[in-house]
């Protein structure tokens, strides 16, 4: 039986480059690996120590190998490079040992990125959190909802760059909302392939 070709959730989308210097850059970041890391009962601290990640809520840990986003006590969304071959999850599983376990999510998540100073204004149209840089430092992580789609938000840098991780099945709908919300500004839409 022939393999089904790998498709991306945003295959149906047309990406466009602005005529002028864009205020906003929206990207579909492809080739990422995702897994959900969960501590076994009572082993959250041990797992965090073993992985070198923080147990603090709302704050990411970024290393060479992965980005860890806290989801709830003893649970992290781990993001690495490599795509959907399962290798990343196997590595994380190995590192977690008997303190935790990882479940493969690379097929189930999509990472969309918004960059530019006006990203605050765009996100304010849907995200119910105060993202004012006075309150929200680089590394801030929150699970919330925007445009009726659940998302994990990560402030990557002060440009600002926000990574928005959504369920793959909602990615196209959410993308259209992002583009729509950005349209009053000059916007570039791109694909970043990190596979």
């Amino acid at each position, binding site marked *: 039986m022939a393999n089904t070709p790998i498709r991306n959730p945003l295959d149906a989308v047309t990406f466009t480059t602005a005529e002028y210097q864009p205020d906003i850059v929206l990207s579909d970041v492809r080739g990422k690996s995702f897994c959900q890391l969960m501590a076994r009962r009572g082993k959250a601290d041990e797992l965090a120590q073993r992985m070198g990640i923080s147990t603090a*809520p*709302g704050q990411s840990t970024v290393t060479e190998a992965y980005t860890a986003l806290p*989801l*709830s006590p003893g649970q992290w969304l781990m993001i690495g490079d490599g795509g959907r071959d399962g290798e990343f999850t196997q590595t994380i599983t190995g590192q977690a040992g008997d303190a935790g376990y990882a479940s493969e999510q690379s097929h189930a998540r999509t990472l969309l990125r918004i960059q530019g100073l006006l990203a605050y204004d765009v996100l304010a149209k849907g995200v*119910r*959190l105060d993202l004012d840089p006075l309150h929200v430092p680089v590394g801030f992580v*929150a*699970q919330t*909802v925007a445009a009726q789609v659940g998302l994990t938000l990560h402030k990557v840098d002060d440009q600002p760059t926000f990574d928005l991780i959504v369920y793959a099945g909602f990615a196209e709908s959410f993308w259209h909302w992002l583009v729509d919300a950005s349209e009053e500004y000059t916007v570039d839409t791109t694909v970043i392939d990190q596979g």
Partner: protein
Amino acid sequence: MNACAMRPAFNRDKIMHQIQCPWCGVRDEAEFQYKGDATVVRPADDADEAGFFRYVYLRDNPKGWHTEWWHHVAGCRQFVKVVRNTLTHEVAATGTPADTLQVPES
């Protein structure tokens, strides 16, 4: 005393529509799902049918302070214990399921 006289002065920190999740911080009420009375206690395994009937089906409908479950479905997906005034929507306290929360006197 009529309901209007009992309504406390408007306080943005205390109105409903914002709930302090112990893990995520202050969040919009729309991120939560109401999960009912947090004070019901499961009867012993050998309790009679009437005891289980009460546990499963019968609830008070208090006017005033109520300790209840709110599920942070759009956030950390944990259950949050909330002391809420059913009349004014004021939230007096929130905590984890393990917390014992102080209920204000009416």
